[in-house]
């Protein structure tokens, strides 16, 4: 019994010595490096609507500023010969990259998507407006990344037109017009 205890003690000692010297004998080292990056901001609004999160913006009638060139038209209405402007403000303030933009004008229709019913209406870039396609350079200055595009809306015809009004014109009375305008903004790459 005594011998067995002695033998056990030596085996335990052997194991302890083996583990401790093996642990002591191996050199170990470590090093760690960490890097953090922040994504450049992308904040683009069209007439205050965030185009990243909102797919569609609907202009209201008040967004169109009509000329009073048709003097004999009833106040608050338009008539053939009327012209107006729509301003589209592209605001990329806060964005940390230059922005390429494109303003595409679709086909004008009436409220039922009837193209022919809106014949005579045209929407074009106003003469005084920047181009419909361009680049807004990066700027950290407030207001430094804004661009305002002006579209001109025209109802062809003349105020002095003495002919009977065409059916299409008469058919537009009290109707809604849809003027689709698509603004696309993408990061400018060198």
């Amino acid at each position: 019994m005594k011998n067995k205890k002695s033998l056990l003690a030596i085996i335990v000692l052997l194991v302890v010595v083996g583990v401790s010297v093996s642990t002591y004998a191996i050199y170990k080292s470590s090093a760690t490096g960490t890097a953090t990056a922040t994504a450049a901001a992308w904040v683009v609004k069209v007439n205050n609507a965030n185009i990243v999160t909102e797919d569609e913006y609907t202009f209201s009638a008040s967004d169109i500023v009509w000329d009073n060139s048709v003097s004999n038209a009833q106040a608050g209405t338009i008539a053939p010969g009327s012209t107006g402007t729509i301003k589209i403000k592209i605001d990329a303030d806060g964005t940390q990259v230059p922005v390429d933009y494109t303003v595409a004008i679709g086909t004008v229709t009436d409220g039922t998507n009837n193209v022919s019913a809106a014949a005579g209406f045209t929407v074009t870039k106003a003469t005084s407006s920047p181009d419909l396609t361009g680049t807004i350079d990066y700027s950290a200055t407030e207001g430094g990344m804004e661009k305002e595009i002006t579209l001109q809306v025209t109802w062809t015809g003349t105020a002095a037109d003495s002919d009977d009004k065409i059916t299409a014109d008469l058919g537009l009375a009290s109707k809604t017009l849809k003027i689709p305008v698509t603004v696309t903004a993408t990061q400018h790459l060198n």
Partner: protein
Amino acid sequence: MKEKNKKNNTINIIIYIVLIAIIILLLLHNCTFKNKKESKVLSGNVDIFEINCDKKTCLVEPTKNEPKKDEPEKEIPVNKEEPNTERDIEIDEGSVIVEDDDITWTNSNKLRIFSNAMYENKNVIAPEDSNTYKFVVRNNTIYNVKYSINFVETNNYNINLKYKLKRGNKYIAGDESNWVSYNELDFNDKLLDISESDTYYLEWKWVSSDNDALVGNSLNANYQLKIELDAEEIE
């Protein structure tokens, strides 16, 4: 019966002797001064110690300094109270270090992996941005070592960052045409001899993806890459 007892005692004695011999051998093996590096012969006003054993903690005897011939001899102070003193010294094992163009890594470093000239060298990135980060693993120990490198990503905004890794001028992850994810950069047990070094080039790129606008719209969306190195002596 007596004979049996005698036989058992003999066996036990033999076992004890064998076990004690194993213990002694283990102790001797791990006290051996492994991979002893040849020291340069130092000159000038230095203390030269003659090591007369091969243990990590050694007894040494200071020897007389030999000044350079072009320098005047300086009197070396002797401790008159304890002449011929024997001193214990610890041999510096050195360490495996990692360094880049700016710093030597410690465990709390912020690396300039994503430093971007487009943003005054701040760590700001945008889709299609890319750059290369160079770092060097250097064996300044007194052993031949093997090391492993592990890459860990924190990417809560799903930024589509991809990588390539070169050791010297050879790709070990990705290639000229292909980028890989961070978890394909890891490698294990790269051997590195004493005084040798390995140079790495970590290339990164934000590859354009469908969620880029959402990422940029989440103000201050961030990304983190951690690089961990573990080295150990080769037994």
